């Protein structure tokens, strides 16, 4: 396998971008990444997008978006694994370069979610669950994660206040991210007093509906060195992908995210790293309980200790291992197909020392964990500053 480097990142504003279409927000982030990389042509475009058909009534993004960028003729493909579509697009681009099939790849993620109303957005997101054996009964995504939360509370004593602390931390980080959807200080009381969506999850335990896009440019280490100037070369040293049962009823243990654990194990093995080596982490906090369970599954904390770690400030920006310095999905926003790419862009910014107010000082090893459905798919990528 060839080593793979990230040479460009592009993330636009996340939010309710009513004045912009899917193709526009996608092209803006793609051009930003190409410009950041100093690259004007690529061998492949990968696109992570969960459901353009349900959100904007458009399929065939490969042709649409290559054309939008003036790159008709370039190979392009859309990949989908619900909210892990962005991480999967990265994994696809990584594999193309590692294998020698492509030398330079534009990896992108996009979702335009606010062209439909709340009910239609709920329906579209619900299609990431088992529609026949879960959705039939009226369960929603907050409901599925609420079931995981309830099981975690029962086994480990995790509390609503501890889950709320995740939202407090991530909103505090989001205040420092100019691209975040919400610049909003939130307290534990704010979370606990917000509308109950699905017991025990309140509105402020949930990530929002968001329009947004993100892009990164991958290439070989040799070319990355030539493009780097005086910037550090950031490489992807580990890539893990795993699945779990889509339906929660088919899982033996509802207190762990097995796909996340497996994807992390595979990424750590490829990189020759362990959790203690990490300096900065982005995890898929689609709900506050998801961050707690993800930090346990990637091995930052023992099972059952993910919640107290937040309480103890271990995952704060100034803590032992900062988690979601970008603000996470919770504050930055969650344009589902874009999320996995935006997480990696954040880690690259951190490793380059370009994360401004939210910079984790001295970070040279980072991890990004992206997740689809209620944990049915997960990707984990480890990135490092090349020595």
């Amino acid at each position, binding site marked *: 396998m060839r080593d793979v480097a990230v040479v460009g990142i592009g993330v636009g504003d996340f939010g309710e971008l009513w004045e912009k279409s899917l193709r526009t927000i996608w092209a803006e982030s793609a051009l930003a990444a190409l410009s950041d990389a100093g690259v004007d042509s690529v061998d492949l475009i990968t696109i992570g997008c969960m459901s353009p058909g349900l959100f904007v009534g458009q399929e065939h993004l490969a042709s649409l978006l290559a054309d939008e960028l003036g790159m008709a003729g370039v190979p392009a493909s859309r990949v989908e694994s619900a909210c892990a579509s962005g991480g999967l697009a990265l994994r696809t681009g990584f594999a193309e370069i590692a294998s020698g099939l492509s030398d330079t790849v534009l990896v992108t993620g996009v979702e335009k979610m606010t062209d439909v109303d709340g009910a239609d957005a709920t*329906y579209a997101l619900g299609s990431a669950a088992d529609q*026949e*054996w879960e959705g*039939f009964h009226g*369960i929603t995504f907050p409901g599925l994660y609420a*079931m995981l939360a309830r099981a975690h509370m029962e086994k480990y004593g995790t509390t609503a206040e501890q889950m709320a602390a995740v939202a407090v931390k991530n909103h505090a980080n989001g205040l420092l991210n100019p691209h975040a959807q919400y610049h909003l200080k939130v307290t534990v009381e704010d979370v606990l007093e917000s509308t109950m969506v*699905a017991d025990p999850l309140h509105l402020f335990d949930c990530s929002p509906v968001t329009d947004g896009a993100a892009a990164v440019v991958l290439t070989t280490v040799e070319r990355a060195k030539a493009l780097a100037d005086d910037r550090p070369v950031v490489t992807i040293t580990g890539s893990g992908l795993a699945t779990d049962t889509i*339906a929660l009823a088919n899982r033996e243990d509802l207190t762990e995210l097995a796909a996340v654990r497996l994807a992390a194990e595979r990424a750590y093995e490829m990189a020759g790293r362990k959790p203690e080596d990490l300096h900065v982490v982005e995890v898929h906090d689609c709900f506050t309980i998801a961050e707690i369970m993800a930090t346990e599954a990637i091995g930052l904390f023992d099972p059952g200790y993910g919640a107290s770690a937040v309480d103890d400030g271990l995952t704060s920006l100034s803590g032992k291992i900062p988690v979601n310095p970008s603000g996470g999905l919770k504050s930055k926003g969650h344009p589902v197909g874009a999320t996995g790419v935006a997480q990696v862009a954040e880690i690259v910014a951190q490793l380059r020392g370009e994360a401004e107010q939210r910079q984790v000082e001295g970070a040279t090893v980072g991890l990004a964990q992206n997740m689809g459905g209620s944990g049915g798919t997960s990707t984990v990528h480890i990135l490092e500053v090349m020595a």
Partner: protein
Amino acid sequence: MISPGRSWREFPQRYRLEAAKCTECEKVLYPPRVACPKCGGTTFEDITLPREGKVVTFTIVRVPPAGFTEQTPLPIAIVELIDGVRIMVQVGDLADPSELEIGMPVRLEFRRISSDGEAGLIFYGHKAVRG
């Protein structure tokens, strides 16, 4: 958005709780599958799920999807039946949804699940009630 074809196809499981028991490893599959996910076996015995079980985890959906607004707040649980099979079901007949708790004994009863879909259908299936 459940089509008449899909609704009809699911009648055996929704109406009659029909399941399949793997003849190799005895794992019970609900719904039946082409191959057993545990051992890979492809021969099965037709069985009917037991109706008794207990709540493994649950939530109360307060912001419901389309078709469920009249039933909100909507308690939904994962129930482990006495043969070890776990299924997701609504929980009915609770005077107060806060009665619901992990470990609560329940039994499955045939009920209407959701209001008319776009095709004008009524969807029936099983709900759990206190056992």
